[in-house]
């Protein structure tokens, strides 16, 4: 085992050092050293050194050769994608390439790539020359190739052949463009020589490098000497075939050819790399990007060839002949056949005729025969089949005709294009001062003046082009069924129609622009004119425009009226409710309720008093059991009294809750109205601003239109001016929109948040103040009576009296405090609403001032304008009519503005008065509440009012109804949100475990009135037990039970104490729990519905 500190090593030796020189250089060095070594003296140190050096170099050469061979082999195996190139390389080339790659010396690489670049550039030149040669001799070559095709019967190469050729060229690392060109050339070559496409491509590719250009040059020179006869009798083809064949085959077979192949492969490799380095060749890029275009072009080429071979025109001509024959000859035969076949007996002549007809028809259409004799001859035909066939042939003819027309149209386009291309040349020839220039060579594109012969040739060529175009046009006419005249007529008609259309549209523009000024009757006239049978397009269009205008006006007016009606109605309701509230005397109502309560209390008090007096008078005679019974009865009476008082209170509260809610609703409506009104004002302000800006543009436009006096150019110019103006003011309009949005947002926020927040804060503040003040009162009273209590500490009767006195005082002061608190709260609540109305009033006032100021400015401007106009009139720039018209318009505008402003201001004043009235009513109601005689009822009313405010708050939150019969409710006391609480309108007896609208927090046992009555009659102890077990929630202190009270009461104590305590209990109970359950459900729903209706009406503004 190796020691822990021992280290393993792995070494990578790079070959760079060994490859500092090429093999050739090293061989030269060896040669030189050998020469020197020979001159050295035997046994000398120099000889020994040289020998070592030679040996070292030789070893180096051997090593390098081995390595390069290995690397070359590796490359061949596929490390690079160029192994295809190396497959054809000779040994020498292999060695050279391997040595070069092994050398890896930068300078060698540079040389190598330089060579590659040069070759790439050279090849580009060669290709350019070749293409130019091909282009110049295109027509003669085409002709020859066309002849060769006819003779060879070759149409086009198959897809497979082309794919193989493409593959071959791709392996040769040809670019897509080169591949396309080579294949096109090879197809021609293959046709001429009768070779396969593959071999033609191979030959062309082999000879491409420098040979093809020369070969073709020779060939094209030879074409010039051929006569037309020679061309047509085929001698030329053989000659060309031989030349083409010799060009490739002979050379490919020779050693030189092989060397060319090897060189070509090597040069392709070099060129590829050269292109890669140059970047301009974009070898890889073009290989990727050009792939699609390459395939497209190939496909297009094939499609073109196919199209040539299957000329639609020719097919149409053939088909039209055959169909013509079919229709003219076969149709009478069919009629005759039907006639003969319908006969029962035929004469021998008729039979012969029938047979002949069958023969003729089946000759044209063998499928028509439907019965044969035993020799296979047709004995009957289906005339329907034949008719269908004819019909189909006609359809086919029509289709072919269409195709032929398309094709001819394409030819015509092509001919026109050609004419267009040569048009400048012809014009320069025809122009008296023009000079027709021509390029003098392939490389240098120097322009020179054309010779007379060249001019003549160009003119002749142009004449030929013209003739061709005419011929194609005529052909097209024939195909279209002498459509030329029809086309001309059609064209004329179209032109007339276009002119008419233009005139109409011009007229229409003017008319439509004036539609806004026309009355509905006048517009109706246009509508009627358009509805008449045979109305022109213009009339119809005008009718449509007029109808749109009428609809627009009607709808607008209708909508506006509806909207106004709704607003009016909602305000009327509001005012009615205010009036109704004004008619109610809440103070009287309260007194009435209080009187009822007193009546009940007096009744029970009398009974209790009587019982107690009886007990007192007969104290000695009564047994303890009898005394206890009397006490129990007194307690029962007290309970009954409390219950009845509660009942009265409940009824009163229920009635009053409606009224309070109404107050709330009205306040809310007022507030909503205020918000809506504010929003409306904002909207109006910005609408007016926009209207003013746009109105100025429209006015200018209208003026220009008027000045144009029907001149189309001026009208267009006016429209352009208008468009420009609109574009210019767009920014201002956008600013206005933005400002409007901001202001709307502010108003909404102020309305939604501030008002409710104010009210909420107010309530909290009021509650807090009330609680604090109550404690304060208690403490003060305690402090006041402390000395007195201490002094009479041992006298229980006196102590009780003092305590009673204390309770009285606390109760009195608490009532007083509540009154004050209620009043304060009511005043504050009213002041909040008042502030909102005050805010609106301020806004209105600002609005009024602004409008007044604006009016003044407008009037001043008008005065100035009038002065200017007067000056213009005096100096004769405008005439009297124009002056009057403009001044009249200005006056009318001002008058309209003033009228509108007065109306708006009056409306605002009215609204403010309305809101103020509402606030005053609210204040009066609040005052009435605080002036009420009963303490409990007052507080309950205030609690209800607070509840109403809170309900208002909840409503204001716009809590969506989650499901039918469910509501989200915020608890009045705990301020918690109870989501989706189901409402039970008729609660049944039982335990309600989850919050329900009747069982506020859940876990409450509800007993319906009938069951309660049953319990009271049959199971009074259950009621007692419930009463006994009730958990009273009081604000402060505790409430003595009836038993303890009876025990605590000293003899002779006034019954009024009980009343007072009862009142305090009621007071505290109401203060603590409120009366929410009696006002929330149905009222809530009704209020909600009503508010929704009002809101939906108002929000449509």
């Amino acid at each position, binding site marked *: *085992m190796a020691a822990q500190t021992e280290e393993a090593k792995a*070494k990578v030796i790079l070959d760079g050092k060994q490859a500092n020189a090429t093999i050739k250089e090293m061989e030269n060095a060896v040669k030189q050293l050998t020469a020197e070594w020979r001159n050295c003296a035997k046994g000398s140190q120099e000889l020994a050194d040289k020998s070592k050096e030679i040996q070292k170099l030789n070893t180096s050469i051997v090593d390098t050769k081995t390595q390069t061979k290995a690397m070359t082999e590796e490359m061949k195996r596929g490390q690079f994608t160029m192994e295809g190139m190396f497959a054809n390389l000779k040994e020498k080339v292999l060695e050279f390439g391997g040595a070069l790659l092994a050398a890896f010396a930068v300078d060698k690489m540079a040389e*190598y790539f330089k060579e590659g670049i040069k070759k790439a550039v050279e090849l580009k030149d060669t290709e350019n020359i070749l293409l130019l040669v091909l282009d110049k001799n295109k027509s003669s070559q085409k002709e020859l190739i066309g002849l060769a095709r006819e003779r060879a019967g070759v149409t086009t190469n198959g897809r497979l052949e082309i794919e193989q050729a493409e593959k071959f060229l791709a392996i040769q690392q040809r670019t897509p463009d080169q591949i396309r060109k080579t294949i096109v050339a090879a197809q021609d070559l293959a046709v001429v020589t009768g070779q396969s496409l593959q071999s033609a491509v191979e030959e062309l590719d082999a000879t491409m490098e420098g040979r093809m250009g020369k070969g073709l040059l020779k060939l094209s020179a030879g074409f010039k000497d051929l006569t037309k006869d020679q061309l047509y009798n085929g001698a030329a083809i053989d000659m060309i075939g031989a030349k083409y064949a010799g060009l490739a085959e002979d050379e490919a077979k020779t050693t030189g050819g092989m060397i060319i192949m090897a060189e070509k492969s090597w040069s392709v490799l070099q060129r590829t790399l050269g292109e890669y380095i140059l970047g301009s060749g974009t070898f890889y890029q073009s290989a990727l990007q050009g792939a699609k275009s390459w395939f497209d072009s190939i496909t297009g080429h094939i499609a073109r060839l196919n199209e040539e071979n299957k000329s639609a025109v020719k097919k149409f001509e053939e088909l039209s002949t055959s169909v013509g024959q079919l229709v003219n000859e076969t149709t009478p035969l069919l009629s005759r056949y039907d006639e003969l076949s319908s006969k029962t007996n035929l004469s021998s002549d008729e039979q012969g005729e029938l047979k002949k007809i069958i023969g003729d028809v089946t000759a044209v259409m063998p499928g028509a025969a439907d019965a044969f004799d035993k020799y296979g001859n047709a004995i009957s035909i289906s005339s329907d089949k034949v008719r269908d066939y004819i019909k189909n042939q006609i359809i086919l003819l029509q289709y072919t005709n269409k195709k032929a027309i398309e094709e001819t149209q394409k030819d015509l386009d092509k001919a026109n294009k050609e004419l267009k291309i040569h048009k400048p040349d012809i014009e320069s020839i025809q122009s008296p001062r023009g000079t027709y220039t021509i390029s003098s060579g392939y490389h240098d594109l120097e322009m020179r003046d054309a010779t007379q012969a060249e001019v003549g040739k160009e003119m002749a060529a142009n004449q030929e082009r013209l003739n061709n175009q005419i011929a194609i046009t005529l052909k097209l006419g024939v195909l279209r069924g002498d459509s030329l005249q029809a086309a001309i007529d059609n064209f004329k008609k179209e032109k007339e129609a276009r002119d008419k259309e233009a005139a109409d549209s011009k007229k229409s523009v003017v008319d439509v622009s004036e539609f806004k000024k026309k009355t509905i009757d006048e517009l109706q006239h246009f509508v009627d004119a358009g509805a008449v049978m045979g109305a022109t397009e213009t009339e119809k269009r005008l009718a449509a425009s007029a109808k749109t205008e009428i609809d627009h006006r009607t709808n607008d007016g209708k909508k506006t009226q509806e909207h106004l009606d709704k607003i009016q109605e909602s305000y009327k309701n509001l005012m009615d409710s205010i009036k109704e509230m004004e008619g109610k005397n809440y103070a009287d109502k309260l007194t009435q309720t209080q009187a009822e309560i007193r009546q009940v209390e007096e009744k029970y008090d009398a009974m209790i008093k009587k019982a107690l007096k009886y007990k007192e008078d007969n104290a000695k005679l009564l047994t303890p059991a009898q005394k206890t019974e009397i006490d129990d009865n007194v307690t029962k009476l007290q309970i009954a009294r409390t219950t009845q008082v509660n009942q009265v209170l409940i009824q009163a509260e229920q009635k009053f809750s409606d009224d309070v809610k109404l107050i709330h609703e009205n306040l809310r409506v007022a507030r909503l109205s205020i918000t809506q009104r504010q929003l409306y004002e904002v909207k109006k302000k910005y609408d007016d601003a926009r209207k003013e800006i746009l109105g100025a543009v429209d006015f200018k436009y209208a003026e220009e239109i008027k000045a144009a006096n029907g001149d189309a150019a001026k009208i267009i110019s006016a429209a352009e001016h208008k468009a420009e103006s609109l574009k210019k003011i767009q920014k201002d309009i956008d600013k206005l929109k933005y400002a409007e949005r901001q202001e709307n947002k502010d108003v909404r926020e102020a309305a939604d948040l501030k008002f409710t927040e104010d009210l909420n804060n107010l309530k909290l503040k009021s509650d807090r103040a009330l609680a604090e003040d109550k404690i304060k009162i208690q403490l003060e009273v305690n402090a006041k009576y402390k000395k007195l209590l201490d002094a009479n500490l041992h006298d229980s009767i006196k102590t009780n009296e003092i305590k009673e006195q204390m309770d009285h005082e606390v109760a009195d002061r608490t009532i007083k405090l509540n009154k004050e608190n209620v009043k304060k709260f009511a005043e504050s609540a009213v002041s909040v609403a008042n502030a909102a109305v005050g805010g609106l009033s301020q806004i209105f006032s600002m609005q009024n001032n602004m409008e007044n100021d604006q009016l003044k400015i407008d009037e001043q401007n008008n005065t100035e304008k009038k002065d200017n106009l007067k000056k213009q009139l005096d100096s004769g720039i405008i005439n009297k009519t124009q002056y009057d018209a403009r001044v009249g318009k200005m006056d009318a505008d001002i008058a309209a503005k003033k009228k509108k402003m007065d109306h708006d201001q009056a409306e605002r004043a009215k609204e403010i008065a309305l809101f103020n009235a509402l606030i005053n009513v609210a204040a009066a109601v609040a005052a009435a509440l605080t002036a009420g005689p009963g303490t409990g009822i007052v507080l309950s009313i205030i609690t209800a009012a607070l509840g109403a405010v809170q309900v208002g708050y909840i409503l204001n939150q716009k809590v969506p109804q989650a499901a039918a019969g469910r509501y989200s409710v915020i608890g009045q006391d705990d301020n918690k949100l109870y989501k989706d609480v189901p409402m039970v309108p008729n609660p049944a007896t039982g335990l309600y475990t989850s919050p329900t609208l009747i069982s506020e927090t859940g876990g409450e046992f509800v007993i319906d009135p009938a069951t309660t009555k049953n319990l009271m009659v049959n199971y009074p102890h259950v009621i007692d037990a419930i009463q006994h077990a009730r958990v009273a929630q009081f604000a402060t202190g505790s409430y003595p039970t009836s038993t303890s009270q009876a025990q605590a009461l000293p003899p002779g104590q006034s019954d009024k104490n009980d009343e007072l305590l009862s009142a305090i209990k009621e007071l505290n109970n109401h203060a603590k729990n409120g009366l929410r359950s009696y006002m929330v459900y149905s009222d809530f729903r009704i209020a909600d519905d009503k508010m929704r209706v009002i809101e939906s009406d108002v929000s449509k503004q």
Partner: protein
Amino acid sequence: MDKVKFTPREVADKWAFFTIKVWKEKLWKYKILGKSLRSSFKSKISADPDGNVISIEFGFKYTGRFVDMGVGRGVRISDVRENKTSRYLEGKMLGNRRVAKKWYGKTFYHEVATLREIMARDFAHKGILQITEDINEKTISL
């Protein structure tokens, strides 16, 4: 043309770094958790004054080779193959479970091949740069 960002020495340095990284990954893969071997990897690059890299040398704890071969702690190199065969035939074998964890050899030769490609590409880029410069300086004409 701006692909040549590193000198040959930098390339060699980075290659050595990645080779060591791959070795360490292999150690994790074969659960060779000894810290001494893991922390013993180091590399040394020799270059001539022109900046041509001559050799890149790696060093690590010699025990790493034993782990690679699956020998040591009583297992001879001749036992490795036998153990492998018997494990294949009989399943989990008793006694010494040491197996060859070939973390070293394959990785090294693979990375050397990668270096060869990198260097070849590097030389080619150099050539391109040289030619570009020559073209710009008009020392060669097109």
